[in-house]
């Protein structure tokens, strides 16, 4: 199981992947936006996207859980 966490305070601009999907290492899961910059959040490992903890428009803090890959 791999947890994907936010590296910074940001707004969730786009959710690209969906729960239950098969993802590969390096796939874009979510795109965050902060300070006029888009930051793609990538899968760290391959597997099933078991849980997605954010929705578009959410604000995440540094360290917040974004997704779990099993």
């Amino acid at each position, binding site marked *: 199981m791999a947890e994907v966490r936010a590296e*910074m*305070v*940001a*707004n969730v601009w786009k959710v690209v992947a969906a729960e239950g999907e098969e993802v590969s290492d390096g796939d874009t899961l979510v795109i965050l*936006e*902060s*300070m006029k*910059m888009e930051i793609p959040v990538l899968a760290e490992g391959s597997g099933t996207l078991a849980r997605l903890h954010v929705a578009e428009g959410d604000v995440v803090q540094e360290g917040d859980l974004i997704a779990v890959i099993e």
Partner: protein
Amino acid sequence: MLNSVLVANRGEIARRILATARRLGIRAVAVYSEADADLPFVAEADEAVPIGPPPPGQSYLDSGAVLAAARRTGAAAIHPGYGFLAENPGFARQVLAEGLIWVGPPPEAIEQMGDKINARNLMARVGVPVSAGTTEPVTTAAAAVAEAARIGYPVMVKAAAGGGGIGMSAVTGPDGLAAAFETARTRAERFFGDPAILLERYVERARHVEVQILGLADDRVVALGERDCSVQRRHQKVAEETPSPGVGEALRGRMLAAAVRAGEAVGYRGAGTVECLVDTDAGDFIFLEMNTRLQVEHPVTELVTGIDLVEQQFRIAAGEPVSFAPDQVRPRGHAVELRVYAEDPVRFLPSPGTITQWEEPTGPGVRVDAGYKAGNRVTTFYDPLLAKLCVHGRDRDEALARAREAVAAFRITGPRTNLPFHAELLASAEFRSGDYDTSIIARLRS
């Protein structure tokens, strides 16, 4: 001269414009969002008006709120700074329709240069060199592939209405083109409300060099030297210097003359910047785009010329002559600007937070244009620019030595900043040699 001005911007540039206004005895009005109430520019204005919540669309981009603040305070003029409403011809027209003075170029000039396809075509007509590229908007991935084959790879894919490097990418062959095109189109639509895309030949070893121009009240256009802006990450500038170490006298002469022609072609008034790419292998240049406003990095030009560009903007807007003899401008020495961003110095990811310590460097030739002070909170709503650390020296060596000392003396705690990156840049053999191009940061990070 103007008797009052409202500055429709925030942070360091609002503070910088307000400072010149106050020096000239012009009543200076600030507007601010809820996120910025404690910032220095608000305290330093003669009058400050809250215009809305933190998101730019509900404050700094809300033209109705800005105009209402101008009416309420009786401001005679509006200075837009850079970004936000600065290059919005509709807003410029609204300002003029209200009977106010617009401290900027005619709306028609903003419009002509704002569409990058139109600007390229116009420049080609008046004899300013442009790279091979599309003369019409590209609307489908298939058309992009066909155009790229005609132009030749590598190609740059970008938004016709764009800026700030958003959605831009270089593509080396047909494989990556469809994806780059879709990304550019999505972002163009989202950030600029216009999906038009253009393709142009990408110059691989290029310096990004721009020319400062001023369109005077008597219709003359003058060029005030160049700035080298090749130190970039994600197509956004991080450090600038003047003169450019990669531009000799002959090339400089041709670039300045071309920039004047560009300004004349659109009846330019006020401060503007003609951005070019210098092909370091060929020793030649092409027109990239024109920014119809005051540029972030204008201080380096001010340091070597001794000219206050914001004062000239006010004078030109008031229909007055500039404060210097246009044919006798002789830049002196060398100047460097380092953009201090709230971002980690390795991957350059945003790092907002509350500033717990803020100590600016001082000393001969050092100028700091800062938007924040200790206690301020840096939010996620706006760009990460905290301050511009600018230094002037008799020559490049002295300017770089002063820059190294100033970077070491600048203390900011709270958000992470890119000051350690600037120390690294100033210590790098490539930057010190002066022989660098727009890939310098990629090489430093590889």
